[in-house]
């Protein structure tokens, strides 16, 4: 029991939050939601440029789709106005639908690409759509004590 707890603590200590990087909004095209694709220097050693850029560009495309003004959005707007906006009680807006897609995408990206590299993306909606927050975790176990990793492997062997 004591050794297991000890291993859990080792695990906890093995991934501690080191830093957070904030990708700011790109306002060069107006007030529509876009994030800067500039690669932050803190991530240079953690993830490839192409993967990062693809994530941000896909997110930007999602937001552009949500805020797109075209036939469907006009229809939704007019219908909502005609029903005195009561229709929003039953139906969710297009924006909300796209936000759900975005949440799924971010989760998928975290699981497949970012978490294995010790990174974690926070959905911008949780930060008021101001920033994409990427948390950087330091893997202490790999850099430091071999005892930590050996005890972890010991517990999994059990």
């Amino acid at each position, binding site marked *: 029991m004591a050794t297991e707890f000890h291993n859990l603590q080792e695990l906890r200590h093995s991934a501690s939050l080191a830093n957070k990087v904030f990708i700011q909004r790109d306002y*060069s095209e107006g007030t529509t939601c876009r994030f800067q694709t500039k690669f932050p220097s803190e991530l240079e050693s953690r993830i490839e440029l192409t993967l990062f850029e693809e994530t941000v560009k896909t997110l930007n495309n999602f937001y552009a789709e949500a805020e797109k003004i075209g036939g469907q959005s006009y229809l939704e707007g007019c219908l909502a106005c005609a029903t005195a906006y009561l229709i929003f009680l039953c139906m969710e807006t297009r924006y909300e639908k796209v936000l759900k897609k975005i949440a799924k995408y971010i989760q998928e990206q975290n699981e497949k690409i970012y978490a294995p590299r010790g990174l974690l993306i926070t959905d911008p*909606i949780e930060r008021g759509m101001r920033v994409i927050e990427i948390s950087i975790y330091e893997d202490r176990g790999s850099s430091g004590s071999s005892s930590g990793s050996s005890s972890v492997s010991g517990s999994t062997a059990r």
Partner: protein
Amino acid sequence: FPPGKASMRECEYSQISTRSSTPMETPYKKRTPKRKKWEAFPGRNKFYCDGRIMMAKQTGVFYLTLVLILVTCGLFFTFDCPFLAQELTPIIPVLGGALFLFVLGTLLRTSFSDPGVLPRATPDEAADLERQIDVANGTTGYRPPPRTKEVVINGQTVKLKYCFTCKIFRPPRASHCSLCDNCVERFDHHCPWVGNCVGRRNYRFFYMFILSLSFLTIFIFAFVITHIILKYFKPAGCKWAVVVCFFSVWSIVGLSGFHTYLISSNQTTNEDIKGSWSSKRGKDNYNPYSSGNIFTNCCMALCGPLPPSLIDRRGFIEADAPQMAPPTNGITMYGATHSQQSHMAAATPLLQQQSSEPVIITSSPENGTSLPARASLTLGGPCTSLPLGQPTPPTSTPSLTLHHYLTPEEVPSPPGMLHCGSPLGHSHTVQASFYNPASQDSLHEDSVRGLVKLSSV
């Protein structure tokens, strides 16, 4: 020690620790319901119906609006409609009724919805911004108060101002409402008649409200006059309806016309009053947000997609509370002049950390004085000399984490728990402030307002 005494001691110890770590929960209630985010909202808003309804603090004029509309329409339906339905056509009361309901619906929608409030920066964001500003300015210690960032939008240079209350660079067209103490996206104006700010999320409802109200007042005015003329008889109710409508027509129709102009040129009231895009400012000054086409502008404003609320009023605050009672994020930092306030402000980044998020002393403060002072405070007093926040490159040794660590199991879960409308997760730091800024000293409020006024010029 006798075993009884030891266990007693242990019990006492565990009770105390529960109390100190979760001051919101009483010790005997293990399953207290979690507080919702609207209960700890840092702005000066009032919430009703468990966070579904959001209004400004002063709502007296809103009730006046309601009373005026209800009484006038009531009198119209009681005294004029029976006569007009008989003499002319029953369509009149039906049309009047529909118009009245639409007016009421849009008014309530405008008043009760979130105008597009920008949530305040989390402590990490604020610290990161501070660091960037210090790097950009290259000054040591003293922070020059005005902070602006220039952005080129569609060829036009726009200045983004830093909001000291919300600790963010305001997006273009956003403005800080001093009455509600919030930054609001695409801020139009604060309307006391609807008891709320008018911003990105409720501008179309506001416009539909004043437009339909114009039609309603003209409608009532016209038919009451008709009634009077047809009957040569002035019931008391009629007179009142005539008077209200007469004055309302000019003001409300005028207001509708003004907002129609604003919509067709894609400006906010704020921008029009300041003359931001007026050609008088400069030959090349133009509105970068306008599409150039009146019809397109109207469609964008009225039929564009409705963005979601960013403040998640009814989401739950994470239960774990910090040890010390934190001042809210409403504490602003006025350069380096107010040492006490910078003290309190410095304490906010750590004190609002939840247990699921480790404390971060953000990396590399290049200039020595301010950040280490902040860091020393966060230790809770005695270890003032501890050299936290060393200017190390971020990728090297992790900064000192003081409280809990996020387990790797916990790490991927927050995005997984995300779903639209109520994201749980670690977005709770800002909202977990326990004191309404209004309860802070009035000096702070006045200075915030003063700062806001300065910055809005």
